[in-house]
């Protein structure tokens, strides 16, 4: 990758139960700024863990993380939440926040510890909802939304957060084709505005549709990373997933098939 990395991971090690079984095993990776990167890998490869480490939620027991050239540890909680946003696969809250209130929560990193959202925060929340055409949902309780609608609302919350880096953990798994299309279009728009997007997925076609860069992970290590067009080969995918995989071409785009 030739562009300046916005995130740089240097020999990371992480494990959940002490330094014996590494979930991330000597992982190094550079993420170029302003692009969409997809992370592919089998279950248990450490994809979600990697996102949590970049977010700062988990602390690696060895190695360094640089965000915009600065060590991650040098950022305060608030500063980090102004740099890195997160969209989960699903959000479970038993409380009936309206869609608007939930998206407004995305403005929290820009508020003081004890302050309340300002008119500007309300305006940016409305903009985020408009960007995803969710205005009609804004007074609905999030507990009454479908899985797909919730996913869109979570993306709206992350947009309202206005971070230069956005991490998404299997964001399209609950979406139907039309929502998937809108979701990926929004990711491309955000990348066009300079946001760096990293997402994990189990669907190679989603990676093909949205990402320019690809990271292949297996057993806590990066097998390969680079431009998607170069990495999406039968050989590399078969090595990543440990099963035979074919890559065909359809209208000049790669199509991944189980053989």
């Amino acid at each position, binding site marked *: 990758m030739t562009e300046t990395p916005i995130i740089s991971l240097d020999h990371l090690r992480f494990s959940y139960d002490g330094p014996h079984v590494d979930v991330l095993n000597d992982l190094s990776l550079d993420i170029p700024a302003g692009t969409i990167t997809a992370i592919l890998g089998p279950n248990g490869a450490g994809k979600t863990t990697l996102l949590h480490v970049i977010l700062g939620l988990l602390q690696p027991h060895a190695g360094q993380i640089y965000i915009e050239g600065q060590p991650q540890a040098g950022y305060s909680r608030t500063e980090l*939440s102004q740099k890195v946003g997160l969209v989960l696969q699903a959000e*479970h809250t038993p409380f*009936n926040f309206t869609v608007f209130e939930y998206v407004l929560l995305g403005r929290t990193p820009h*508020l003081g510890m004890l*302050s*309340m959202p300002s008119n500007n925060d309300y305006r940016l929340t409305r903009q985020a909802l408009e960007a995803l055409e969710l205005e009609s949902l804004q007074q609905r309780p999030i507990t009454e939304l479908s899985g797909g609608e919730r996913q869109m609302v979570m993306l709206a919350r992350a947009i309202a957060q206005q971070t230069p880096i956005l991490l998404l953990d299997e964001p399209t798994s609950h979406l139907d084709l039309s929502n998937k299309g809108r979701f990926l279009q929004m990711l491309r728009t955000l990348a066009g505005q300079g946001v760096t997007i990293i997402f994990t997925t189990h669907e190679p076609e989603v990676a093909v549709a949205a990402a320019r860069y690809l990271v292949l992970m297996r057993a806590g290590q990066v097998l390969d990373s680079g431009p998607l067009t170069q990495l999406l080969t039968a050989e590399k995918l078969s090595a990543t997933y440990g099963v035979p995989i074919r890559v065909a071409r359809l209208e000049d785009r790669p199509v991944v098939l189980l053989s």
Partner: protein
Amino acid sequence: MQNFSARLSPVRLFWLLAFGLLVMLLLSVFVGRYPAPYWMSPGLLQEDVLAQRLVWSLRLPRLLTALLLGMTLTACGTVLQMVFRNPLVEPGFLGVSQGAAFGAAVSILWLGTSPVIIEILATIFALLGLALSYVLARQWRFGGWALRLILAGIAVSALFSAGVGVLKYMADPLTQLPEITFWMLGGLWSVTWRDLLYILPIVLPGLLVVYLMRWRLNLLSLNDETAFSLGAAPARERGLLLVAAVSATAAVISVSGVVGWVGLIVPHLARRLTGANARHTLPISMLMGGIFVVICDNLARTLLPGEIPLGILTSLLGSLIFIVLMMSVRLELRR
């Protein structure tokens, strides 16, 4: 209910309730059994010295304590529900109230009945009860988080109740036993200005912390990962809110005894009126809690010639309202 909430903005509802509470407080001054059951004519205050002393020394401190009790219990209920992401918890369900009662009983038995000592011990054991419920719920491997937390709370509450039982058995039946029994029933009949002044230094800062951090409360009710990504330090902020809310609760119930169900049902009702956003729900439920307990206490001291323990009334009304709520609310509990 839906239409009602759509018509009334949270801000209007807040001022409506604040006005209602003020009227309720004013009227409550004249409710009681002196000189005759149910109502004292306001004119009497100008001529009858006994009426003046009654209102000043008994009814006013009692009313204000009832108000504080209602506000604190609902604030604590809201905090517990949002911090534990479980709409089915309240101080009485998580070992807080029973722990406080046990601490008070220990104090009555061995350390004397000074309000300050009772308050300190009640606070220590209330926090201990909460911590124990939390640790057990984390350790257990049965059912989801919401269920485990409730089960652990029931177990810890039962443990402290049994402890109070043992202490009652050991207590002097003439002096200590009535004191402890009062605790388990809950009531405000002995409240004086001094009691109120003793609890204020803990209750007011506790409520202030909760009130000022109510936007953070919203964050903490989301998934941990989401809360963290939005800048929260979940463990630290949860700890701060819990200590503030539970200390305030322990302090008020060191005066009132165990008063149950308020912290569960009032936040529920408030959320039905204004939605989950704690920015609005917290102050509105605190006002509603204040009104609810003041009404219950008015009934407790007026309805019968002898006093009805407040805890019995709130439990009766609270559990009935809860049953109706559960029939009509679709609760989503996961994890």
